[in-house]
């Protein structure tokens, strides 16, 4: 069984990251914007795992582990902020969030 070349994974990772950026820029719903950040993190994780495989070392996997932990912490705080915003502004559209005051 011939393995998949690592560059395939890196190209896929780049495509997913690009789509994440596109979603981040074009979406208007604050939750979806948040989700596109998660998509970008996932793309980076894929690159990490691919590099770990290419170099035959496990450090990349440990990094993925940390990225996932940080993403979990980020989601907890971020979603709490989203709930606050939605309750104060009655809208999830980021364009309505144009004041510094919450």
């Amino acid at each position: 069984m011939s393995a998949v070349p690592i560059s395939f994974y890196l190209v896929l990772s780049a495509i997913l990251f690009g789509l994440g950026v596109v979603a981040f820029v074009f979406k208007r719903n604050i939750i979806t914007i948040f989700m596109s950040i998660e998509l970008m993190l996932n793309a980076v994780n894929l690159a990490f795992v691919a590099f770990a495989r290419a170099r035959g070392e496990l450090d990349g996997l440990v990094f993925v582990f940390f990225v996932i932990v940080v993403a979990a912490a980020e989601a907890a705080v971020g979603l709490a902020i989203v709930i606050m915003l939605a309750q104060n502004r009655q809208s999830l559209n980021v364009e309505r969030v144009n004041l510094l005051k919450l």
Partner: protein
Amino acid sequence: MSIPIILFLVCALVAVAGAVVLILAREPIHSALALVVVMMALAVLYLLLGAPFIAAVQIIVYAGAIMVLFVFVIMLLNAGVEERTDFSKLAKFAGVPLGFFLLLEIAHWLAHSPIGAAIANGAGSSAGESSTTELSEMLFRQYLFPFEATSILILIAILGALVLARKEE
């Protein structure tokens, strides 16, 4: 075409399709589901890359906890159809082709540059499955300090979420 390459192509297609649906869907919950699909496809790719532990963690934490939280918040706020606003003409006519071009360039570089070629031909297929024991030894010896730091990070995140979600008295 060997079985791993077919599997890779299928998963890659599913992942890219999921990401595109995430952008095109107007209901936030459809976007969330598309992202879950992307994550499942990536988990299969991690298995293919010989990292079963990371694949399991990806599903448990990302798809099973973080995305459930997203779905929960979407349901809680009853987020309806997203309002669309016109984005600038410049973005439409210059940005999209430029972004596409950038992607092509990265792909080209990866395929033809010495680093990309070295990675492609090199150790890629040599290592077998990474063992969970080795990974945990690395995590608890070499990376012990960052590991403990993440525990504090999580604690702070919990406190932050509690403070934000608390009702004003």
